[in-house]
């Protein structure tokens, strides 16, 4: 814990602000029902009301409070972002460790599979799969994970390849250390920071992808994600010639932008730290 706080204190100002922004959205997500007077899925006022004392951010075409939807939308975005990133890093990390550790044919097959996944144009494929599996949050997470595990797999593999030639690993092996022991004691601690960088990068990517897929109408039509709010708003006929966009489109758009930027800045901070500490970690163990 102390180490984490120390690490955060080393962040630049932008990094710290970014972290506060993420924290803010996490609080929104956790306490969404307490933070809003109105339900996120039921009409609570007249349709398309501008921001007022009652409805801080106005209402949408069904009369549902926008603030309530944004709070709940934060939950959806964060859940999709974190779950996708976690599954991708865990899955990709495992593939990377296996490929790096065993080498030979296993490495060859796994890496060819990774190459194959990497050359498939992702967005069109995600749209096709999204349409095929049907619109739901689970499917979106599944489709996003399917295309996100390759980057962590390659990074982890190359790291494992370099570690496995270290003398202490050879010694451990000669004493009969098994695969899981090696993962636990050596590979995981040393690849953890790399995985963290991938994790953070994937979060923002997943949030944008979820918003994009929802915006294209491939998300769960009744969920209240930020992307879906944008989808509904922008599909309103001639919205830019009315005043409605000022609250119905602008607020979810700003949320997506700030969240993604904040996550990217934090990712950048962690990456910067990693780069500056290259060459130091490999001697540990």
């Amino acid at each position, binding site marked *: 814990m102390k180490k984490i706080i120390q690490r955060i204190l080393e962040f630049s100002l*932008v990094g710290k602000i970014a972290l506060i922004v993420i924290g803010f959205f996490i609080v929104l997500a956790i306490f969404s029902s307490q933070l809003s007077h109105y339900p996120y*899925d039921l009409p609570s006022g007249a349709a398309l009301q501008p921001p007022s004392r009652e409805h801080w951010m106005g209402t949408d075409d069904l009369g549902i409070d926008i603030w309530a939807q944004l709070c709940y939308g934060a939950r959806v975005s964060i859940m999709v972002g974190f779950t996708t990133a976690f599954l991708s890093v865990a899955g990709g990390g495992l593939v990377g460790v296996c490929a790096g550790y065993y080498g030979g044919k296993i490495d060859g097959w796994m890496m060819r599979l990774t190459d194959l996944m990497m050359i498939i144009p992702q967005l069109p494929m995600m749209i096709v799969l999204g349409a095929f599996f049907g619109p739901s949050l689970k499917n979106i997470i599944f489709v996003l994970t399917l295309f996100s595990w390759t980057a962590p797999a390659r990074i982890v593999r190359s790291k494992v390849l370099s570690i496995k030639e270290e003398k202490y690993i050879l010694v451990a092996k000669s004493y009969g250390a098994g695969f899981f022991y090696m993962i636990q004691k050596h590979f995981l601690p040393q690849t953890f920071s790399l995985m963290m960088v991938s994790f953070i990068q994937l979060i923002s990517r997943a949030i944008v992808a979820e918003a994009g897929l929802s915006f294209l109408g491939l998300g769960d039509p*009744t969920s209240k994600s930020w992307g879906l709010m944008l*989808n509904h708003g922008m599909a309103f006929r001639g919205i830019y*010639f009315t005043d409605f966009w000022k609250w119905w489109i602008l607020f979810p758009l700003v949320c997506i932008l700030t969240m993604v930027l904040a996550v990217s*800045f934090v990712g950048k901070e962690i990456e910067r730290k990693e780069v500056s500490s290259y060459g130091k970690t490999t001697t540990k163990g």
Partner: protein
Amino acid sequence: MILKNKVFKKGSIVLLILLMLTSMVVGCSKTATNEDATVADTLELKETTDAEEPVIIRLTGGDYGYPTPFQHYPRGPGGYKMQLVFDSLLERDENGLIPWMAKEWEISEDGLEYTFTIHEDIQWQDGKPLTMEDIQFSFEYFEKHPPVWNPVTMDGKAFVEKIEIIDKDKIRFTISEKNVTILEKIGDVRMIPKHIWEAIEDPDAFQGEEAVIGCGPYLLTNYNKEHGTYEFTAFENYWGSKPVVEKIQFVPASDEVLAFENNEVDLASIGSDLLARYQGDSRFKIIQNPGFWGYRLLFNMEKKSIFKEKEVRQAIAYGIDQEELVEKVERGAAIVASAGYLPKDHIWYNDGVKKYPFDVEAAKERIGDRKITFQLLTGNSNTEVRIAELIKISLKEVGIDVDIKSVDTKTRDHAINTKDYEVALTGHGGWGSDADILRERYATTVQAGSSPSSNIIPGYENEEIKALAQQQLGETNVEKRKKIIFQLQEIIAEEVSFLPLYNTTGYTVYQPSKYDDWMYMYDHHTVSHSKLSYLQRK
């Protein structure tokens, strides 16, 4: 310290850019929404069209299939594009059926023989003359190979018993039973050239230039499936009214209103929120569409037998707030549909049918202790998803759980045609047609064509409705037939074997200085679908 400063500087720049972006968005929109700024500020209005200059009309595109009678997409924008190329014996104007390829017709006293006199000098678009054999061939070919929009069959059977060529400009159709809708049906059949189609075994796969040769006023001169663009050019040797519009182009437009404002399209559908923008400005004309397009909720009684119970269907009707749908989803530009199907704008609308205002208690009373849940299949258009959401919310109040499944429109239409749904939300036109649509919707067991309006009700049969529907078909006395239709609407409203939700009455805006001859067909909701909108009229 230097590093920290650099990072801080970078961060400040990023924040600055963010702020600029936001203010740009706000700034841009101010120009668009500023009410003081007149529309003329944002439009480059075209001066009065020079009479010599050929008129080119651009409309919102989208792929609706290759415009042959066999390959167009079954929805209106597909079918009416096909009809620009392919003519029929009769046509529709504001008031009813009018002579077209047939300049006159006679009906025998027993109502079984229809003799049409055809215009002379009708030419196919490849220069060959049209003969009576072509007309006979078209009917026979469509009986063998049903087209997408299929007017040659009734209840799955061809209704024309015999076709005789009497003279070089006269043809007679004999039908087996007296039927008041036959004239409209025969008149609606598209003519295809025998010399091209007689060799075609699989019309669904027949593409190329020859497939789109008709005898209509427009030639298809460009079609791009990927971009959803079409171009129709006036056929110079057209036999009938001369085309006023030289070219009709369907161009891609992601936002129709924006495209209209930028002069990229010449016609736009607008909601009631935009009325003020164009009203009172003489450069624009706004017309309100008649309510002949509507949404309805279909119950699949084969798949979910609970819907066989009338009380359950009535409970759902009471449990959906149709007024709210009109107010919120259509922003007031619609009318609550009649449970008797024929909409308020229909000439034979019966105002005395049972109505289903939103009534939680009435719904609960009918549900009793039944536990009802169902999956609602809808298209993925914003309107449909919003309707589904409101239905889910209001039905929850009466104790019915709805699970919404949204798929793209074509998948939904296919699922309806293959009866693969529990409850489906669908929208289509054709609500203003002859009252025989009541028979087609409620009393047929064989689906005619693949039009989204032609689905049958799976698992539902009502002998009383069937008998009345059959009776009106043979009733030539208008008053008596009207009485039967009124009675039919009452039974249908009581039964609610599917639930009509609302009929849209949206607005269309255009610039009369560019083109002002738009026309509604008497039973249709869109001016751009009428062939006569583009032709010279007396």
